[in-house]
């Protein structure tokens, strides 16, 4: 049985665009990080679909690296959010203007 490759691509594009909307419209820093996770998942689906299509395991290996990077990114991102909350009592991303001169 076969799923056409463009169906997989359209599905992962929809997931990626939902992540883009989340990053652009939400103010809560934690939910912005969650939307980034959605986008990384969409990229992983593409990697694995093409790995299966071309019978090359490099795609699966690279999606392992993406998962590792996502884990590190979430750890550092949430530590930044905790530290921001300690210093500014807020995690709303538009209220954090420390770098505005």
């Amino acid at each position, binding site marked *: *049985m076969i*799923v*056409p*490759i*463009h*169906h*997989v691509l*359209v*599905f992962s*594009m*929809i*997931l990626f*665009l*939902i*992540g*883009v*909307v*989340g990053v*652009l*419209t*939400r*103010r*809560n820093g*934690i*939910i912005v*990080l*969650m939307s980034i*996770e*959605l986008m990384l*998942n969409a990229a992983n*689906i593409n990697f*694995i*679909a093409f*790995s*299966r*299509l071309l019978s090359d*395991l*490099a795609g*699966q*290996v690279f*999606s*392992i690296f993406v*998962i*590792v*990077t996502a*884990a*590190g*990114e*979430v*750890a*550092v991102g*949430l*530590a*930044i*959010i*905790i*530290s921001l*909350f300690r210093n500014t009592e807020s*995690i709303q991303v*538009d209220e954090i203007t420390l770098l505005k001169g």
Partner: protein
Amino acid sequence: MTLGYATWFFYVLAAMAVVSALMVVTRRNPVHSAMFLVFTFFCVAGIYITMSAEFLAAVQVLVYAGGIVVLFLFVIMLVPLQAGVTRLPVTRGAAALLIVALLFTTVMTIYARAARSCAAMGVQTEGPAGNIEAVGIELYTRYLLPFEVASILLLVAMVGAVVLARRET
């Protein structure tokens, strides 16, 4: 064309993943968002299984659904919820929709051009491929150096998270 079980499985899981991803982005309560995020990750793990990437499905459940979402919930509980509006002004929402529409039309234009040549290509949902042994051999021979670099990256991220979140004394 008749669809097999594995193919149906893909479409059902994809629909559920899209719906729960929409829920992640639209819920006001971050705890609800985290719960829908777990559901999305499980659906994506099921999609990996239909593409014969069993090892990746296991890693997805262990690392994403098990580790990362617990970290999210921990921070949501640690940081008190803030009352009031949690969305940006309407102009920002309109700008986001515009960007998304642009991306969508661009991708669909490219896709419409390529559709004829790749219409016959499809991802097999049955049969052998992607077993764990082959992935491990690939990971520890061709991609040994990136693997080691990834371990250093995780170590640096861990130390950085500890330093950032440490209470100043």
